[in-house]
């Protein structure tokens, strides 16, 4: 029985995914590159501002890697946290590693540094798209307990490949935010089954929003990352036109505010009602062919 990926700390996850002992960290905690904004709020800062970055090897190949720590401010992106990611991505553009792998766990913009965090997330997005446009594969692994939300949720889907565990969540706004805006009738944040079938790994896999679905297991994430190491999806005009049409088509299928199970049925998932009780292996084979095309583009 392996450890739960979700329960590991960011550096433990990172160590488990890359080749043993291969991680070399840049701006490690010993250098104390910390948020300049938290002290005046009386909020404890972290010596790494909640993200570890550096180089490593994966299946022998030189990669750049980052891991966000959800235990520190929910993985929220502040000025320094964001700048470390931007620095890593710009360095990747210069040094051309075999891939850039981000173990994402984030609520998005760190509200304690609201304006700086928003701009930082935008800088991360543009830097990641520069790396992708240069033909360097970009991989996002989502398996932390806090999920991947807000601006980081958008950043993640700008990458070539998104890997999720079946217990991970990937979305934009958290259910609590939606509930506070429109009530529990709109989205009941305490209904865990509803939350997971709306934003969880199984749903994202079945509808093509993620490219690999794995168990909550560090070895499974490592294997999926190795499998995606050479996957580069170009973003040509034709690719983006296809993406537009497919996303619109999917939205048209749900013109009436259907539940996830109903949406899966309409998209052609067999025995959609049974999906929440299946494990990742069983769900993996149920993705309709048309949805696989969604995620993999022309490939």
């Amino acid at each position, binding site marked *: 029985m392996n450890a739960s990926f979700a329960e590991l700390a960011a550096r433990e996850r990172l160590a488990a995914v890359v080749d043993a002992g291969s991680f070399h960290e*840049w701006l490690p905690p010993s250098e104390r590159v910390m948020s300049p904004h938290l002290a005046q*709020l009386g909020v404890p800062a972290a010596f790494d501002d909640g993200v570890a970055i550096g180089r490593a090897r994966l299946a022998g190949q030189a990669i750049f890697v980052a891991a966000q720590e959800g235990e520190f401010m929910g993985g929220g992106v502040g000025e320094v946290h964001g700048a470390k990611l931007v*620095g890593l991505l710009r360095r990747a553009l210069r040094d051309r590693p075999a891939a850039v792998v981000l173990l994402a766990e984030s609520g998005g913009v760190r509200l304690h540094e609201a*304006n700086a965090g*928003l701009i930082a997330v935008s800088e991360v997005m543009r830097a990641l798209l520069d790396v992708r446009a240069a033909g360097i594969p970009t991989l996002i692994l989502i398996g932390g307990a806090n999920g991947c939300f807000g*601006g980081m949720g958008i950043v993640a889907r700008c990458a070539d490949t998104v890997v999720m565990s079946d217990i991970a969540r990937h979305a934009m706004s958290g259910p609590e935010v939606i509930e506070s805006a429109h009530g529990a009738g709109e989205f009941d944040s305490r209904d865990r089954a509803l939350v997971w079938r709306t934003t969880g790994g199984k749903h994202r896999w079945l509808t093509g929003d993620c490219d690999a679905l794995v168990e909550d297991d560090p070895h499974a994430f490592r294997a999926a990352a190795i499998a995606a190491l050479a996957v580069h999806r170009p973003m040509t005009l034709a690719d983006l036109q296809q993406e537009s049409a497919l996303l619109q088509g999917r939205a048209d299928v749900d013109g009436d505010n259907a539940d996830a199970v109903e949406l899966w049925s309409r998209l052609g998932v067999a025995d959609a009602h049974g999906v929440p009780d299946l494990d990742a292996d069983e769900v993996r084979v149920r993705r309709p062919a048309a949805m696989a095309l969604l995620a993999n583009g022309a490939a």
Partner: protein
Amino acid sequence: MDWPTVATRLFGDAHAIVADGDFLGGTATFDGAPVAIVGTTNHAAVGVELALRQARAILATIVDHPGRPLLLLVDTQGQKLRRRDELLGIHRAMAHLACCIDLARRQGHPVVGLVYDQALSGGFITSGLMADACHALPEAEIRVMRVPAMARVTKLPEELLESLSLTNPVFAPGVANYVAMGGVRSLWDGDLAAGLRAALADRDSADRRAEEGAQRGGRRVAADVIRRVLEA
């Protein structure tokens, strides 16, 4: 300022911008050359459909008018807060919009962002903030969230945040703070056409925001951290 006023002050009568619900699109003539306009109005909540609508308009410009300058007009309350949009992968639709803007830039379209009314979080990050550079009108409002809501979410005293916001642009809404932090390159005050002319003349599409934030003193450490990672 409402969008028809912005359009008139930029283009006079030489525009055919139309609003369709919360979506803005069309073409204008500026200094004798065509400009494509894509944006939102009514403090739009950007959901899956509105993100895709903007994406299609940008792709159509790339197809039909290669190289034509794009002006992104921003007025958004942020992403739509609905279960259906989350179910349908709003994060992916917004990422798609960002990727379409990115493609336009790579294919040689000058891309100018203008916050003419309101810009919040997710709706802003995949529109104006994806431009070569984003600009704003002085009376526009840019924020992640209002100070009272920020106090509630962070469980910090509202008075503390209010007082810090007087000296630190990180904490408070406002276009001037975004200029100081490098997120907004300039304010278009008075002569809007002069602002657009200058923006179109600036053909450097590299992301200079961290450096500008450091030069202007509003974001003091980001550029230095980026440099240190490159040198580590």
